[in-house]
């Protein structure tokens, strides 16, 4: 490393520690001031899981309201707040947090480093994100503000202008929404910079770029993508606040401003954001599928190239969210074709995972079950994505429940399934104990059934013309039974998630001892004790191939003989 270090006098603290008034307080204080990547990773994870439950509860409230026609469970105002908060929570407080939970915890361990490149920036980023989330939820109390109006944000998570103008959204709810996203945006930017610097500058000896585990590669690509897609959102939010507080006219159509430009700015962020969320999930699959197939990943360089390819293509597809606003046919054709182009690198990935499974000695442990479900569901999500990329098809189904079904297939069917897989896979490393396989199987099957009952059915109400964002519907539309089925599926998913939460708590105390390497895996994090000591590695590791632990376990047949 080129950074110079100063000679530090008395680096070793030899004074006896003060007697603390309270052990608990001391322990809590330790978590608040920590700069350790593992503790911060755990805090990110806890945060994501808490908000997963909150966002899930909001989804359940939405589904109770829609289970029957003309239902009065939620008022229209509260319904709008619920789906706005559900979307914002799931994308920013769950999705972005899980990325950095795993990224923080695993990237330094996987590349043989002591910590992240900037530990204090890391802590700063976490607390920015954490307080951004609190700011968003504070709107439930503070949104009433001085005007006695508002409550939680109710402008949908894409917040189209001019609904967000002061005249149409009085009170402070929309401001809490914008400010919370700006604050979280800075936290995200800091974390992304940190992961890029860590990956490039702290790799242990022999960990060349093409020896890095695929999860590290995907976190690296994701962080690069974050640099250029979260920042446009920050810029757009600043413009929104200028409009709302300083009387600017960016999105004020009566003064010549444009509502369309907000759509462009939002989706320039919003579409790549989906890839920001899904790429780390691809990383999980790329780590878990080989280990449970007992084979090295198929086509490693192609996987790396496809990841970078997806990131590039994702930057040029945003206006497929806007086919119905009336673009030129050239615009429609461009965005339809660029969207379909995404299918090529993702297809490469799907085939590589299948080829990894092919001929493998597959172990159907819970992490692997979730990953296999992911493969099927992600394929279907991709297929409906290509359907929606066809502009005339989109004109028919835009803003219908077909679209909702499509993106929940990606966000839940692909991303959440892989997050669950990753939690089951790395929980032993983090806590030293295995998650219960029995509870895990219950969780998997209930969640799988609930997922398909809900989201498969949602495609059909979409075909039958049910639009999104409506708080109720007439009984004569023919949507009644399907909506009830969707809601029941939602409850099954809710029960499954509660089993998962119980499993996390139960196994913390009663789980089977894991040991260093319960899955017989190959990446560096499994070479250290579980949970890893604060210093990670007692001696700096040296690697010779993509599977350093395989080389150690099989000295007669090491990987580096075959890798280029």
């Amino acid at each position, binding site marked *: 490393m080129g950074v110079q270090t100063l000679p530090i006098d008395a680096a070793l603290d030899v004074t006896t520690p003060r007697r603390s008034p309270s052990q608990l307080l001391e322990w809590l204080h330790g978590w608040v001031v920590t700069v350790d990547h593992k503790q911060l990773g755990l805090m990110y994870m806890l945060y994501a899981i808490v908000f997963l439950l909150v966002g899930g509860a909001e989804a359940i409230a939405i589904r109770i309201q829609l289970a029957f026609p003309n239902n009065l469970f939620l008022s229209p105002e509260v319904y709008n707040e619920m789906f706005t908060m559900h979307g914002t929570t799931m994308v920013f407080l769950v999705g972005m947090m899980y990325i950095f939970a795993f990224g923080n915890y695993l990237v330094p361990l996987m590349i043989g480093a002591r910590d992240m490149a900037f530990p204090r920036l890391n802590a700063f980023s976490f607390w920015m994100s954490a307080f951004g989330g609190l700011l968003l939820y504070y709107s439930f109390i503070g949104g009433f503000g001085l005007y006695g109006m508002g409550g939680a944000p109710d402008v949908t998570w894409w917040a189209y202008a001019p609904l967000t103008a002061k005249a149409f959204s009085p009170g402070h709810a929309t401001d809490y929404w914008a400010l919370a996203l700006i604050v979280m945006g800075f936290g995200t*930017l800091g974390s992304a*910079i940190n992961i*890029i610097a860590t990956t*490039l500058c702290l790799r242990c000896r022999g960990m060349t770029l093409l020896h890095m585990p695929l999860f590290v590669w995907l976190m690296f690509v994701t962080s690069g993508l974050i640099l250029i897609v979260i*920042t446009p959102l920050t810029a757009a939010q600043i413009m929104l606040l200028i409009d709302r507080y300083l009387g600017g006219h960016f999105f004020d159509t009566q003064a*010549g*401003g444009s509502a369309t430009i907000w759509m462009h*700015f939002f989706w320039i962020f919003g579409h790549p954001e989906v890839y920001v969320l899904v790429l780390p999930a691809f990383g999980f699959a790329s780590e878990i599928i080989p280990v449970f197939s007992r084979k090295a990943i198929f086509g490693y360089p192609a996987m790396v190239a496809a990841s970078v390819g997806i990131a590039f293509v994702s930057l040029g597809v945003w206006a497929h969210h806007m086919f119905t606003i009336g673009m030129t046919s050239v615009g429609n054709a461009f965005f339809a074709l660029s969207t379909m182009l995404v299918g090529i690198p993702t297809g490469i990935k799907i085939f590589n995972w299948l080829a990894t499974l092919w001929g493998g000695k597959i172990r159907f442990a819970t992490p692997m079950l979730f990953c296999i479900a992911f493969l099927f569901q992600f394929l279907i999500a991709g297929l409906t994505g290509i359907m929606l990329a066809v502009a005339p098809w989109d004109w028919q189904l835009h803003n219908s429940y077909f679209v909702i079904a499509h993106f929940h297939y990606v966000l839940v069917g692909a991303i959440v399934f892989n997050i669950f897989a990753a939690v089951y896979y790395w929980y032993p490393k983090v806590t030293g104990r295995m998650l219960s396989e029995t509870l895990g199987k219950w969780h998997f099957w209930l969640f799988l059934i609930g997922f398909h009952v809900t989201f498969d059915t949602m495609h059909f109400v979409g075909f039958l013309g049910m639009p999104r964002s409506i708080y109720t519907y007439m009984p004569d539309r023919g949507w009644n039974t399907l909506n009830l089925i969707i809601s029941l599926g939602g409850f099954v998913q809710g029960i499954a998630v509660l089993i998962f939460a119980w499993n996390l708590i139960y196994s913390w105390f009663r789980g089977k001892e894991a040991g260093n390497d319960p899955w017989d895996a190959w990446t560096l994090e499994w070479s250290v004790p579980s949970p890893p000591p604060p210093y990670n590695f007692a001696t700096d590791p040296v690697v010779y191939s993509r599977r350093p632990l395989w080389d150690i376990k099989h*000295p007669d047949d090491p990987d580096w003989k075959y890798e280029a």
Partner: protein
Amino acid sequence: MSAMPISRFAEPWVLPSRGRVAMLSLIIGESAIFTIFVVAYIYYIGRSLSPPAPAQVLDVPVLNTICLLSSSVTIWLAERQIERGKIKTFAVWWAFTIALGLIFIGGTAIEWHKLIVVDELTIRTNLFGTTFYSLVGLHATHVIVGLIGLSLILLFTLTGHVNERHAERIQVFALYWHFVDAVWVVVFTVVYIIGR
């Protein structure tokens, strides 16, 4: 461990500097923010529904631009001095950089004062006002942040806390200043040449 590839041990293991990587990443992120504001500015050129128009009120800030761009040269000279351990000449060039930055900010203040008081153009007057103050203000904010950083380093230098071991950190900070100057080239072109 039979035959490890010994040759790889012999190779020196060189990794990029984390400071430079992080600063370049920050610059990429900041560029995206500026891009959005520049796109909004260009999109709204000539769409204001009420006066004043840019051509009526804007003067091309030639002196400001010369000062800010030449500050990139002076900071580069300072970077070279600190590498060689010449702290005094470093401090001189560094102080020059701050002075040039201050002239730029002062010039902007005078320009804004004239626009607000004489021409009665504020951020809420029309679309031009909104986009102009946002974009130029965003850049000016970056200049001010840069000036605070530059002044802190000057303070540390004058109190004797800076030596050639800090050359790299100072060069990393200078990257940010070069970025702020480069952005001005874009802002200047868009606001004072294309938009006027």
